[in-house]
């Protein structure tokens, strides 16, 4: 069996007395589409923060493409091909849409340290940034200041930023958060067209979209994995049914 793209070994995170993530073990194959679902407070975003490096682990290991990144800083994990979006939109509000994308594009290049020429001089970067916007139908908004965008457009830009760095593993934190049903459908279409080579781990509250886009599902409850496997199997799991239909 080929090496997993992302592997978590008994990952734990506690805040004082609260065990937010309790011994989570999971393994995601390259190119897989996996949904991470569970009730509010189950520890999903915390788990993302642990994987991306925003939070340190209390215990356990995280392995990215065979490399142990448990103690690696966020930017090192990003350099290995990890990208994420944020549940609460986290963009650069006073910069233009194009500038936002440029930041994403230049992040892994030596150009990010260039100090003596204006950004517009670097045609290749600009091209990549514009292409990145176009792939999410945002190219007309290039000069708009992010602060003035609609919520839906901002959520799209969130994804554009994560994709612009050409990631190998993509963590999507509730991509449809705050979107209208129509916008959610559009977003789902967008996500379906993601490059098949990218490994996608997605937190999603909208069960229909989650089960539509992902072939594998992991269910989290009070920080523990209570179900993990192909979506039909998880859908039929009695414990999962109880959590979503019973309580």
């Amino acid at each position, binding site marked *: 069996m080929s090496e997993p793209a992302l592997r978590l070994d008994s990952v734990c995170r506690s805040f004082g007395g609260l065990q937010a993530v309790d011994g989570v073990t999971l393994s995601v194959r390259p190119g897989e589409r996996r949904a991470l679902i569970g009730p509010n407070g189950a520890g999903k975003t915390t788990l993302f923060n642990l994987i991306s490096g*925003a939070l340190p682990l209390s215990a356990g290991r995280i392995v990215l493409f065979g490399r142990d990144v448990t103690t690696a800083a966020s930017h090192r994990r990003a350099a290995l091909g990890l990208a994420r979006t944020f549940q609460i939109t986290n963009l650069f509000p006073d*910069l233009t849409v194009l500038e936002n994308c440029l930041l994403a594009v230049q992040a892994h290049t030596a150009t990010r340290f260039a100090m003596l020429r204006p950004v517009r001089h670097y045609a290749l970067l600009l091209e990549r940034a514009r292409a990145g916007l176009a792939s999410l139908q945002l190219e007309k908004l290039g000069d708009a200041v992010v602060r003035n965008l609609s919520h839906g457009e901002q959520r799209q830009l969130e994804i554009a930023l994560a994709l612009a760095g050409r990631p190998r593993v993509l963590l999507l934190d509730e991509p449809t958060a705050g979107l209208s049903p129509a916008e959610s459908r559009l977003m789902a279409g967008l996500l379906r067209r993601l490059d098949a080579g990218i490994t996608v781990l997605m937190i999603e509250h909208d069960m229909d979209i989650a089960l539509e886009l992902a072939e594998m599902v992991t269910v989290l409850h009070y920080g523990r994995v209570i179900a993990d496997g192909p979506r039909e199997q998880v859908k039929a799991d009695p414990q999962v049914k109880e959590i979503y239909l019973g309580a």
Partner: protein
Amino acid sequence: MIRRRALLAAAAIAVLALVAPLLPAYPLTLLTQALIVGILAMSLDVLLGYSGLTSLGHAAYFGVGAYAVAIMTTERQAGLVACLVMGVLLAAATAAIFGLLAIRATGTYFLMITLALGMVIWGLAFRWVSLTKGDNGIAGVPRPSLGALDMSAPLAFFYFSLVAAAVAWMLMGLLVVSPFGLGLRGIRGSESRMLALGYNVWLHKYAAFVISGVFAGFAGTLWAYYNGFVSPNDVQLVTSVETLLMVALGGSGTLIGPALGAGVIVFLKNFVSVYTKRWLLILGGVYIGVILFAPNGIVGALRGRRR
């Protein structure tokens, strides 16, 4: 919009260059002072307006540059180039060391650590009497000369300062529109996002800190030549705070705004103190007034009106 500002600034420089020979000595020296302090204000804007780091100890690098020149000219009769290089290098070294401590901190901690570090330099200037002559300061710094070019006359020194300010402004201007500068603005916008994108945020902030210190030190070297006298007063907390006021008054994140703010404060200081001893009271009022009535500074207010 950046191009428009750049053109305006270039025009202003040209106007100053043309008008200078017609000005009487006193306004000319004030303009010279405004140019030099303007460099200091712009250097702080790189840190504050573009990187989002509010530093209360910027006078430290200014002072290191100034003292370097003062000591080297009075004790070793060193030439202009040697002094400039030494002053800037020492300021850079100071910023490099202080940055290691300060950049780990954020927000208020950063503010307080930079304040304390600024005080360390002040303390050294005040107490290390064998080197700095302490409270007496170092007097007798001669005006520089470059080969046959003697710059002791006010007009000659004014042009020297104008060229220096223009060069500093161009370099800093390039920095803030470069990819690195964009990175700094990103850090100011959202550090967490920059980290997630893969930037080594600490390194970028540190680099900005040192670069800012370099330009502040450069301003300090010019100041020593301008003033002829360097004392601990040049390194005190009030100087750092005044620089902060210039940035806020002119409008942070615009580079030319803080330079304008520097000009306003320099002229205000010199005119007001002629008419009243209660200069501090008025300055305090200006601080409070700016926050209450013009939080985006002069340039910010102008920009707002254009919309």
